């Protein structure tokens, strides 16, 4: 078993679907932060069989929970302070996401008006369906 040390302040994202950690790393823009990040892939999990874990040492306010909720709201978010878990944050599907994914409909106005933000709105929370705010194109696969 591989051991990765404790972090003092930051967050541990647990129960990430195996193989998804790198995608989350990029979407949270962790590559742009100058901080310690541990990406653990295919860790053993009783619940999931295999899972990924991300440990990030940074200011806890830097995490964009909306993006994380959109990617996978079943991820466990542990907030760490002074080396201890101080909070487990619950993720929900955000009502709206801005500039996380792009509308792929070639007939959408976002395809020609460059400065427009790409906004997707949660239209069916049960089926977890998001639609483009402008053309209502369905975002079929989240990630």
């Amino acid at each position, binding site marked *: 078993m591989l051991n990765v040390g404790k972090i003092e302040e930051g967050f541990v994202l647990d129960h990430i679907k195996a193989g998804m950690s790198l995608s989350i790393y990029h979407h949270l823009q962790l590559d742009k932060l100058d901080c310690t990040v541990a990406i653990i892939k295919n860790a053993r999990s009783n619940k999931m069989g295999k899972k990924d874990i991300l440990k990030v040492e940074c200011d806890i306010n830097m995490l964009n929970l909306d993006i994380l909720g959109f990617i996978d709201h079943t991820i466990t978010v542990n907030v760490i302070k002074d080396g201890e878990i101080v909070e487990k944050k619950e993720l929900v599907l955000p009502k709206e996401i801005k500039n996380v994914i792009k509308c792929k409909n070639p*007939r*959408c*106005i976002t395809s020609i008006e460059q*400065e*427009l933000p790409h906004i997707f709105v949660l239209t069916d929370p049960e089926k977890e369906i998001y639609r483009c*705010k402008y053309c209502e194109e369905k975002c079929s696969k989240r990630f």
Partner: protein
Amino acid sequence: MRHLMSPLDFSTEELDRLFDLANDMEAHMDKYAHVCDGKKLATCFYEPSTRTRLSFEAAMLNLGGQVLGFSDAGSSSASKGESVSDTIRVISCYADICAMRHPKEGAPMVAASRSRIPVINAGDGGHQHPTQTLTDLLTIRSLKGRLSDLTIGLCGDLKFGRTVHSLIHALVRYENIHFIFISPEELKVPDYITDMLKEKKIPYKEVIRLEDSLPDLDLLYMTRVQRERFFNEEDYVRLKDFYILDKAKLTLAREDMLILHPLPRVNEISVEVDDDPRAMYFKQAQYGVYVRMALIYTLLGLDKKQA
């Protein structure tokens, strides 16, 4: 300030008020002949649509207002690369209300978000064409006296027809509506619509031949079946006559069945049907002007001023 982006932007109660107003305008044109004196409608049409544009212009002229605008992107600053957001900011300085048609879906919504004047979506690609749906609803309500308790046949290209999809979404808000979808296999209504109907427990039937369902209908909404939608010529030749309404087929229909069509028609309704008292598609175009008059009046807030 309100805009109109989708036919569902208005509640059924608000639609009732709008349609009452449209009927009042129909009955008393003189009363409304100067209510928009000094007001201007900008028709910003980034793609040609003569019928819709003229209907909007006729509506504003009937109210005593004036119109300005462009009828294709080539004659607007869009050809120089100006964004919709910038165009509407400029148009807001020139006019009191704007009707916008654009080939890109969502363009009128972008305009509305930047505009200082009400924006009406006059069609955005394959997405929405709310004033056509309002026209259809007003026609049905005026001629049938109700929007509930109806068996409605929708015939032709039900897969790609934006008009048909919008009308279905608008009608499911009323009680006791039955749908009969009449189309070839290749042009059936999309699954997301039948899923929605199942979820709302709204009865519907899918049939291939027009004759099979004609006797049951209160209303037949015809649309065009285009040759290019078929996978092969053989199927087109085999099926195209099923979807042509002629006098012989009409003998199967009820005496009070309405025939509607968003127009333009090509050959799906034989011209011999035009004189039949049930043929209401030209009357429907007339209702299109009344509903746009009522819409312009309402969005300009003139209804509140009078009250």
